[in-house]
């Protein structure tokens, strides 16, 4: 469980994460795990607010103040998404207040907009490309080999 009290600020896990935004959807590629992700619904906005330096709590406040729906539901959605993003190593803890929290995202919505829950879709079909083979020896020429290779 992520400790939201102690780690309330996060940053994008660059350079391991490569991202691109299109028409309300954000695609993230986690270069170390080989997974890639699609953020939809309110997830791109939550990502944007976190990236701009807002705390998780402040992000929840921001959305709760601007959306229809119970405050509790909005906050729970934000916390749950952040927890997933941390678990997937897409964001990592940052120094508190590392970026100005006053910056609002482009296209700021008006109060009363219906709340669309965040969606994080995870794709793991590319992971096999990145399998690491840590088991190797160094032979007499000074170059590594897999265990068992060249032993005959």
């Amino acid at each position, binding site marked *: 469980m992520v400790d939201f009290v102690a780690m309330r600020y996060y940053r994008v896990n*660059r*350079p391991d994460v*490569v*991202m*691109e935004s*299109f*028409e309300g*959807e954000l*695609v993230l*590629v986690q*270069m*170390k*795990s*080989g997974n*890639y992700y*699609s953020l939809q619904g309110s997830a791109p906005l939550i990502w944007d607010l976190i990236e701009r330096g807002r705390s998780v709590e402040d992000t929840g406040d921001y959305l709760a103040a601007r959306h229809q729906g119970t405050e509790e539901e909005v906050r729970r959605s934000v916390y749950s998404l952040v927890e997933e993003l941390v678990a997937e*190593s897409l964001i990592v803890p940052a120094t508190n207040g590392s970026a100005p929290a006053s910056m609002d995202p482009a296209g700021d919505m008006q109060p009363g907009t219906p709340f669309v829950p965040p969606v994080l879709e995870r*794709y793991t*079909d*590319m*992971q096999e*490309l*990145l*399998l*690491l*083979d*840590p088991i*190797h020896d*160094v032979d007499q*020429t*000074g*170059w*590594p*080999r*897999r265990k068992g*290779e060249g032993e005959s």
Partner: protein
Amino acid sequence: MDLTVSAEQQLKPASGKPPDPAAFFEAALHVFEQASAGRLIEHRYRIGDQAVLMRFAGPAMARPFSRAIDHLSYPFRGEPDLTVHFFDDRSTGAAMPPAPWEPECHGQRGVIHGYNDDRFFTTYEIGIDILQMFDAGQNRAIYWVRDYQWIPYWENSFPMRSILHWRFRKEPLQAVHAGAVGTATGGVLIAGKSGSGKSTSTLACLTSDLLYAGDDYVLVDVAGEPYVHSLYSTAKLVADNCDRFPQLRPLVSNSDKLDEQKALIYLREHFPSSVVRGFPLRAILLPRITGARNTRVVKAGTMDAYRAIAPTTLLHLTRATEEAARKISTLCRALPVYWLEAGTELEQIPQVIGGFLRSRA
């Protein structure tokens, strides 16, 4: 599964010495110069708009590595934009200096920690034992293997893929996991991850009037009007496609090894007038297998193209960065995107693509 390399592992110096990629590069290049004395073979190419010189220490690696890019041969004069030195120890009697890094420095996809920075790009792939090193300061590269006989067949199908990616990182050029077919005045990029029907759709066009720029990796230029440059004239067929295209079976170069390898065809040797250097791009097609008889083209979105191209390309290419993602994004935004709903009647595929291109001319 934890695939990460700890910070301690990344920073561990070899034998207590700080990493010195420049010194190692020069030492390796010195071995090449000795190995190639009296047996140097040079081939010149134009890849994209770049002049590339391939230097081989003898014939062992020259033929297999030039065969996939013969169609890009270009006898340029003057300084190359990239010079790559190929050699192996076995055929030349050379002795590469020992690896100057500790085993813990081996990271994902062969990246050697401590030997990758703004200037140097270094990978060593354990198991296939291939060292690739690029010096961005002087646009020189080394491709070394202990024994040329161990080079896997897929390396012959896309020689220098990593080195070209590193060289082009600051150019408006980007290697992408996609095929491309079309006409001299315009064509389509055919993109999708393995199993999407990308290769099937591209191969189905081989016996048509459409020109072919690649079926697995091509180079796109995103400065201005998108343009696709051919990289490799090879086709790799999985077993299903060997069945779908029985007319291609006699052309397979490794037919005695199909129990462990994909079928590899050097298309330039069999379809010399079809394989071209490139053409302007008019659209991106994303194949999907429907099971229906007929093929049709259906509007898709920019994001669909990005999802089809970016993850697979970025994860294939070592040290791909946000620069590469941005070039792919630029490409996807610049072109209309369509689903290519590929039907079971394969001869319809080139007809539909040809008709599509004529309608956009």
